């Protein structure tokens, strides 16, 4: 039995925006869930990687506001394993960018609990690249 989901104009726009920004064809996802079972961070996410894909397909704003897209650390495990060849790391990056490009930072580097020079430079640079606009 199949069910048709009618997407409103707003949903469609978001879904297209995610495809454009990620360069990935998100409609290819058939919800097999291998990304979720492979994801080392899934336990700490509010929605699973397969959930990120589903919400992206139907253009649900929930995905843009989720914590999961920030927990994804671009380890590329799902990318390597996706049987549909989708680069999920690019989808997560697109979703982070949708937030960051509104000039909203995800961390406040002026109030860290550690001195910046005690952390490896690559840790600081990558955190800034991923969490700030």
């Amino acid at each position, binding site marked *: 039995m199949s069910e048709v989901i009618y997407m409103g104009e707003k949903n469609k726009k978001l879904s297209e925006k995610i495809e454009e920004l990620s360069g990935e064809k998100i409609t290819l996802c058939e919800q097999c869930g291998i990304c979720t079972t492979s994801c080392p961070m899934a336990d700490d996410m509010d929605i699973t990687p397969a959930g990120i894909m589903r919400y992206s397909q139907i253009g649900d704003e929930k995905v843009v506001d989720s914590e999961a897209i920030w927990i994804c650390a671009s380890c590329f495990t799902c990318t390597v394993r996706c049987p549909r060849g989708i680069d999920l790391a690019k989808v997560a990056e697109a979703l982070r960018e949708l937030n960051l490009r509104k000039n909203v930072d995800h961390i406040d580097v002026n109030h860290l609990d550690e001195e910046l020079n005690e952390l490896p430079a*690559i840790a600081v640079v990558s955190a800034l690249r991923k969490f700030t606009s």
Partner: protein
Amino acid sequence: MQKFPYYPGCTLKQTAKNFEKSAIASARAIGIELVELPRWNCCGAVSSLTSDEIMRHVAPIRNLVRVQQMNDEGMLENEYRLITLCSMCFNVLKRSNMVVTGDAEMLHTINQFMDTEPDYEGTVEVMHFLEILRDVVGFDKLRARVKKPLKDLKISPYYGCTLLRPKEVGIDDAEAPTIMENFIEALGGEAVDNPYRSLCCGSYHTVGENKKIVAERTYKIINAARRNGADVIITSCPLCAFNLDNRQKLTKEMHPDFEYMPVLYFTQLMAIALGKEEDAGLEDNFVDPRPILRERGFLGVKQ
């Protein structure tokens, strides 16, 4: 001495000085001179993954221009294989190189933008030092240079993410790599299996409020190594090293049953095996690897 261009990256001049020091000494011991790129800049640590990012490729590509210049100016003789040590820098430089050499229009835009630099011609091959050891030197030749085999030392290789993934960038099979195991065996050590050898350590979550994510992964990865009998862990990424080594303190706070384990850069063990113990930089590791290495007789006379 065979000269190669060498890109250190920021962290090798900061928290991972022992990585650079041990690598330079080890390379020299097998006839390789790492010639540091003049005026290199930060690669950006992570690749931008959105389809419209051109700007973020400028920093990596500018470093590749330096390799061309070194050849043009006679610092190198027709050597375009760029050696990296830091896994993250390796990944970013290689990925940007692949992107721009596969996209003539983007390369043109970047070259136009860098109007005070010579054009990047796409001639550089970005390689990791482990690849040089496997493919250029050869693990058999490395084995022949070993002065102090790491006999009976049980070593758990930790690949992390950026040496292996994504597939087109990785230096070995993304799911079943062997390069570190073969490296360990070349040094006379024993590679022990670790099911979490390529599990993400949590990366940059070590910055800020989510560092418990890292500590939980450290707990998992090190406990698996211990269960399989490992004495030490080796890695090639200064961020993984920080997370697996320095974050053991937080791991211990969260899990009182946790036991410390030394985490070393692969080049530190290489330096010891090649008789360059004084350049191994063992004093800089958070969990001191010297007691176990001394106990097994790999370090000089007791102090």
